[in-house]
């Protein structure tokens, strides 16, 4: 068993230097995204794909055909349940839905998330959109806003 210091004066100095600053060490986003089973980004990605598809008046089958990807993958992605999608799948879906592929890759956890704007937008988007039959005006607005942020350079 290790013996921790009991020298209050020295420890006080060290604590003063630490000053409640950030002490985190470990990993950033990509690793967490890769081993997180229910990340906000995957939820946001699923909602985004679903709303965008519905906004373009496609059903899941039509989208799968258009993007030349497996229907099961589309469905799992939309439900936020496909934890390690193939880059190709994301790329093809991005093309079919006219969304920027590289940003979708970030949401899917396939490349490191570099842009906190996207994360924040994803959090807001995931919180605002609910799966209902027809896009509500709020959903439509949320979708438009998220797509606009994704389109920014």
């Amino acid at each position, binding site marked *: *068993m*290790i*013996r*921790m*210091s*009991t*020298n*209050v004066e*020295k*420890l*006080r*100095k*060290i*604590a*003063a*230097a*630490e*000053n*409640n*600053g*950030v*002490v*985190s*060490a*470990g*990993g*950033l*986003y*990509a*690793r*967490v*995204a890769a*081993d*997180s089973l229910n*990340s*906000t980004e995957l939820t946001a990605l699923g909602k985004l794909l679903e709303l965008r598809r519905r906004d373009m008046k496609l059903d899941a089958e039509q989208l799968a055909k258009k993007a030349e990807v497996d229907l099961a993958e589309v469905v799992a992605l939309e439900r936020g349940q496909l934890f390690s999608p193939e880059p190709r799948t994301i790329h093809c879906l991005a093309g079919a839905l006219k969304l920027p592929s590289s940003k979708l890759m970030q949401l899917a956890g396939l490349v*490191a998330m570099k842009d*906190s*704007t996207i*994360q*924040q937008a994803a*959090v807001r988007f995931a919180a605002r959109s609910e799966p209902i039959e027809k896009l509500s005006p709020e959903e439509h607005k949320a979708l438009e806003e998220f797509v606009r942020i994704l389109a920014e350079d």
Partner: protein
Amino acid sequence: MSTTVIIFDAATGQALEASLRFDISQDDLLTVESEWSKLRLEAARRKARECPEAIPEHWRWDWSRKISRVHVLATPILGIEYDGKIQGLMALFLEGFNSRLDPDKGKSIVYVDYVEAAPWNAKVLTDNPRFNGIGSRLLEAAVKMSVEEGFHGRIGLHSLPQSRSFYENLGMVFVEVDPKKEDLPYMELQRHQVEHFLRRFD
């Protein structure tokens, strides 16, 4: 299994006797994550509005993902507990990592896989932090465990960019930006710095 460890009340500076626990359980990790993740996310959202650069970089961490490592000898998880709550956590690897710096290049180190102070103890996450010194005490424990393992106090870690100055102030050396680890700064405490490091504590 635990030992007494002194931390400080951030508001009054009063020294407090906390407990350094070596027996963090799965329940502890689940409790921690259910409390901390909400606070991290709230803070991240707040910062996104006020000051996006200050978003805590670890806001998506999830300690419950470490559950499989609980009670594995080579991968201990330590926590500082006070007032019935975990105030900070650290996950270590005691095997499989080596120094990247001469003259001890290739020799075993303790690798600090994760460190985090509870969200209520970090200024970036709260305006009124409660306890101070959590990070330093966890690092002291890591170095002392390295001594105990026969690694002469050598440790290594990947700091988040926001924490780099904290580790530099403790005498750790920046080794490289590590492309294999999300371009995070990799840092080490070398053997010849250990004595100086420990003198600041004891």
